[in-house]
């Protein structure tokens, strides 16, 4: 087991390395505007450009630049092209916002997904199931930024039910914190509820036809008890796995669209803005940050699986 864990961790580092190289390459190989020009401002003299290349190290070979950048990311001294801001600080500032989005949305989507999954599985094939499945389908078919924009306009702007944008730290006022986040939570959840409830429904139906459930039923245990104690518990495992990974993705800044449309100014939005400005240092750092969470949770899930099921370790 120890060897397996070590191997997985090593693979994780390798993947992160590869991701950083790819991101760095995307912005250094594709011609997209010399950062020295942007930093130089209006009508620079060639001397000024040379000076900037020198101070920022753009005159060094690309691999050296890559190493320097990585060194700065881990040393916490990387600065962005625009505003010369410390990139790590900026990410740290975005974390509470992104984390708030992830936690709240996670609770909502898991709750409703389980409720909906149970409901549809119990009523599989009936009209109520069809209706709910169709609703779940509508949920997964909507672009999150579209539903977000409609919410901000109709619920926030027109009806004035919810604040548009803005973020209140939970430490300052937990009620306002939740109130400001309800719309983003809902928008992001709609999609996941659709996906998760359908996966859960499938799993539940599979489990219901397992032998041990039939045995339990034969033993005269109540339907409700069977459903909750035996069926649901076993069917939840894959869902919880998925949840871990999706949650990791959202925490890592994966919910770019949601963050942007609700102007949350979290990690994802920082990434989106930096990319739009071709501001390479933050893009690299955020990509690494996001990939780290995803890869970490991937690895954790793999290891947990391996612990549960020894066969995996051999493959």
């Amino acid at each position, binding site marked *: 087991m120890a060897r397996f864990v070590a191997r997985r961790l090593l693979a994780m580092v390798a993947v992160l390395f590869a991701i950083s190289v790819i991101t760095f390459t995307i912005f250094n190989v594709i011609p*997209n*505007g*010399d950062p020295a*020009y*942007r*930093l*130089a*401002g*209006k*009508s*620079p*003299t*060639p*001397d*000024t*450009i040379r*000076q*900037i290349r*020198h*101070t920022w190290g753009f005159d060094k070979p690309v691999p050296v630049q890559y190493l320097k950048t990585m060194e700065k990311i881990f040393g916490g001294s990387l*600065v962005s092209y*625009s*505003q*010369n*801001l410390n990139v790590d*600080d*900026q990410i740290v*500032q975005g974390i509470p916002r992104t984390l708030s989005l992830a936690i709240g949305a996670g609770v909502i989507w898991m709750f*409703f997904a389980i*409720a*909906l999954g*149970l*409901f549809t599985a*119990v*009523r599989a094939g009936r009209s*109520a199931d069809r209706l*709910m499945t169709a609703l779940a389908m509508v949920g997964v078919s909507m672009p999150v930024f579209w539903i977000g924009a409609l919410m901000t306009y109709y619920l926030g*702007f027109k009806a004035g*039910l*919810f604040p*548009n*944008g*803005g973020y*209140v730290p939970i430490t300052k*006022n937990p*009620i*306002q914190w*939740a*109130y400001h986040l*309800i719309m983003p939570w809902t928008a992001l959840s709609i999609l996941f509820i659709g996906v998760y409830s359908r996966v859960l429904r499938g799993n539940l139906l599979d489990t219901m036809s397992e032998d041990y459930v039939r045995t339990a039923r034969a033993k005269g245990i109540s339907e409700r008890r069977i459903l909750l104690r035996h069926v649901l518990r076993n069917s939840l495992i894959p869902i919880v796995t998925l949840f871990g990974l999706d949650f990791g993705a959202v925490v890592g800044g994966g919910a770019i669209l949601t963050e942007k449309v609700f*102007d949350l*100014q979290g990690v994802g939005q920082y990434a989106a803005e930096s990319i*739009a*400005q*071709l*501001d390479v240092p933050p893009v690299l750092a955020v990509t690494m940050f996001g990939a780290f969470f995803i890869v970490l949770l991937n690895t954790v899930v793999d290891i947990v699986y391996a612990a549960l099921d020894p066969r995996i370790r051999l493959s």
Partner: protein
Amino acid sequence: MGKVRSSLVVFGLAAAGCLGLVACGSSSSDNSSGNKNEAKIGSVLPDSYDPVLIQTNQANQALQLVYTGLVTYNHAYGAAGAKLVPGVAEAMPTISADKKTYTFKIRPGLKYSDGEPVVASDFEHTIKRLTYLGGPYSSFSSGIVGVPEYLKTKNPNADISGITSNDKTGEITVKLTAPDSKFLYAIALVSSAPTPAAKSPFKSSTTIPGIGAYTIHILNPSREFVLTQTPGFNLPGIPKGNFNKFDVVKESVPQMTQDVIDNKLDFMTEDPTGDLLPQVEAKYKDRFRLAPNPPNTYWFFLNQTTPPFDKLAVRQAVNYAIDSRALKRIFGGRLQPTCNFLPPGYAGTGYKKIDPCPYGDPNGPPNIAKAKALVAASGDKGMTVTVWGNTKDPRPAITEYLRSVMVAIGFKAKTKILDQQVYFQTIGDKKTKAQAGFTDWFSDFPHPGDYFEPNLSAKALASSPTFNFEFKSNPVVDKGIKDLAAADPSKVADKWAAIDKAVIDDADVAVYGNELSSSFFSSRMDVANCSGLSPVYKSDWSLFCLKK
């Protein structure tokens, strides 16, 4: 249906809970109504907090209150606000007969916000930082003797031979390589304001003290900063401001607009979103001002080194075909059509309305038939033209409009839209060969040279990237810049006006209008008397006041 109902109940409870929250949690960020000494401002935050590295209007607007130059702009409305007055220097400099040597004397006993005394050599230090760090305005100091040599040493502490300072007498002498009346206007900007050498390292820094009515405290560089009145600040002629404190927060523009409407913000540095503008204009007339500040011009550049715009007839055709009325609509009404390159803000220093406009009344319909005929005659009909633009709203629509004009006059056309952060450097790179597209110019300082030199001169072509997107200069412009360099622009306004006309006659550019910037205030601000409209900074916060 039991389960459905129960989950509906849960949902209903959740909704009811939310409504409860609305009731119990009333406006939390309503700061503006309470404190009479404090104003809250929504802004796109400065591009930097280091005075030598700033470039945006938002940065200049805020930091001009923190960093004062040897000379500075008068804090006044209208043309008076474009006038230079002594700042850190006790009087306007004495200028030598050959107009190449300027002698300043700083006010005695002056202190920075941290209590450090101001010494004459701090000015040279600032110019060194500006040059060494390659700040956006560093080109303005390249005319000082010894600056190119200084750069070559790669030693930040090397001497700039053209600047001598005497810390004892407070005297500063600056030698220019050639007479240049722009010099004083340039050093009046924030980027040349003296800062203490000991606290201004040769790297980007956010903790540099200055001399100004306000002192900056950066709470969070990407979200919020505060300006507080500097205790003991006293520079004759420079206002101390009516608020103890400006709290400046970053918000998205729609959010800002909403917050000013709701009186949660006292002022916003941006224009209300185009979306809300009609409503704002109609409903809050008394809180809203429109003015062509800072002076600006919007035009389409036409690259004269690539076909088809190397032909005068084709450039004229574009000018004939552009419909400023259409563009005004794209600007949500905030555009004054014009035929001049210089904006009306230069009245008295070079603006003279070109009337009649050679391409028809800018407020009237275009002459597509004539344009078509010109293109047909040029032989370039059917050529493919790529029109460039950037992502900042409404520029994609402006770009798309130009594309449609190109199609209407007989070209095949497509657009290319880049992020505004990389747009100008990309089209300003000769290798890009950008044929035509969007550009604009907001005056850095009120001197016509700042309009013609970067945008149309041969001198600008020496920089790469350049702002001369025509990639060719008009000889009249080059000659004018040379002849008028030494003169005070107000004395040679007619000559600048003649250059303006020559540019339009040669169709070097396709000008269509001056943008009106809006200032939008909370209801407690006295907009009628203290709108703060500044011809240099757009808004001068030190003039803001509350209603009596």
